[in-house]
């Protein structure tokens, strides 16, 4: 697992209070991990803070699963 993936998962576990093994790439924040719309906004903000990137709203709308978050960040974060 990439460094980005493990950091993303850690944020999701912390913010959504879910078990680590529920945080699979296919898991949807709202349908599988119990997030509501405010939780999702907060997650995006945490990703921005953790990885020091700005995720525009129109991009954020396309991030609804763990895998989508990881792949977006892997493409857009400068290591």
């Amino acid at each position, binding site marked *: 697992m990439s460094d980005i993936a493990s950091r993303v998962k850690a944020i999701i576990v912390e*913010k*959504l*209070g879910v078990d680590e093994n529920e945080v699979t790439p296919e898991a949807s924040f709202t349908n599988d991990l*119990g997030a509501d719309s*405010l939780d999702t*906004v*907060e997650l995006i*903000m945490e990703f*921005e*803070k953790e990885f020091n990137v700005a995720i525009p709203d129109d991009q954020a709308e396309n991030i609804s699963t763990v895998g989508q978050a990881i792949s977006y960040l892997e493409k857009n974060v400068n290591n």
Partner: protein
Amino acid sequence: MELKRVVVTGLGALTPLGNTVAAYWDGLINGVSGAAPITHFDASKFKTQFACEVKGFDPHEFMDRKEARKVDPFVQYAIASTDEAVKDAGLEFDKLDTNRIGVIWGSGIGGLKTFFEEVASFAKGDGTPRFNPFFIPKMLVDIAPGHISMRYGLRGPNFSAVSACASSTNAMIDAFNYIRMGMADVIITGGSEATINEAGIGGFNAMHALSTRNDDPKTASRPFDKDRDGFVSGEGSGAIILESLEHALARGAKIYAEVAGGGMSADAHHITASHPEGLGAKLAMSKAIADAKFSYADVDYINVHGTSTPVGDISETKAIIDLFGDHAYKLNISSTKSMTGHLLGAAGAIEAIASILSVKNDIVPPTINHFTDDPEIDNNLNFTFNAAQKRVVNAALSNTFGFGGHNASIIVKKYHS
């Protein structure tokens, strides 16, 4: 319209003296002070470095980690005391009409910690707004009754009463009125406050409202003492289950006491100072007496607002003497803030609980920390100084007064079928 009788069927408390009603009452009748150096933040640069904090509270006993993180401490406190009250009342919501069960909750300020932290974080940044999406719904005063309704599925009347330090008394009077008018069967009422943080202590310090007796926190809250120098900040929550008598009897509930009446008024005088002759205080108390269809001699105990500020304690005393006449000297009077500190918007709730238990147990909790009589206060009054007193308490009146000049008094009496 015939008004219904309203009774108290459940209590919950999270206070600086203890985290349950039993622990709170035990602290009250034993004259324990809840004051100690502040632990919630580094207060070393503040004029006041002590407060009456809630001790040993773990929100995770009441909610999971995710839920706890999304609510301000004043809501965590509200949920803890409400859980206790609901259990105490034996309410089984799945067997009741939850459309007729409401929540009316008081808080003076609401999520001050959340507000302070979010704004501080913005101020430290470069002007780019990065507010947390839970900022507003964590901070709002009315989110407390909102969370309580969601926790239990209660769809009756639901809102907050806000009148600074009178807030939870206003909430209880509202609940009393809705039930007696037949608009709800049961209402969870009371209030919570959590303002022991940099903004709360710093803000009240700026007003010279707080005691600065840093060398002796436990004796700092000394209502009616000559050397009182301000109030001591407190925090916590009190929950009271009010219920129509017929509803309580139908489900075989235990009954602590009956609500006899409520009175409300404004000073129309000053933003923070009480009226020097206690005009608004008198008006609130006299309206409560009239509402209860009492004569003044029917009151045995007054749990006073008595915050330990130089001016307020004098005007409240004057108001009592003026209103109750000779009977004023037969009353027991006490300020339980001498022990709990001032819980602001939750003060009315925990002081109503003290009054209810006083009526139930025939014990008056004391005003502790009395060392020196104040010549400006009539010390022929029985302030229940330093030790609890046993007496028959048929009825108790609880006073609360808030910044803005809001006054609210509620009377509870022994329940007789």
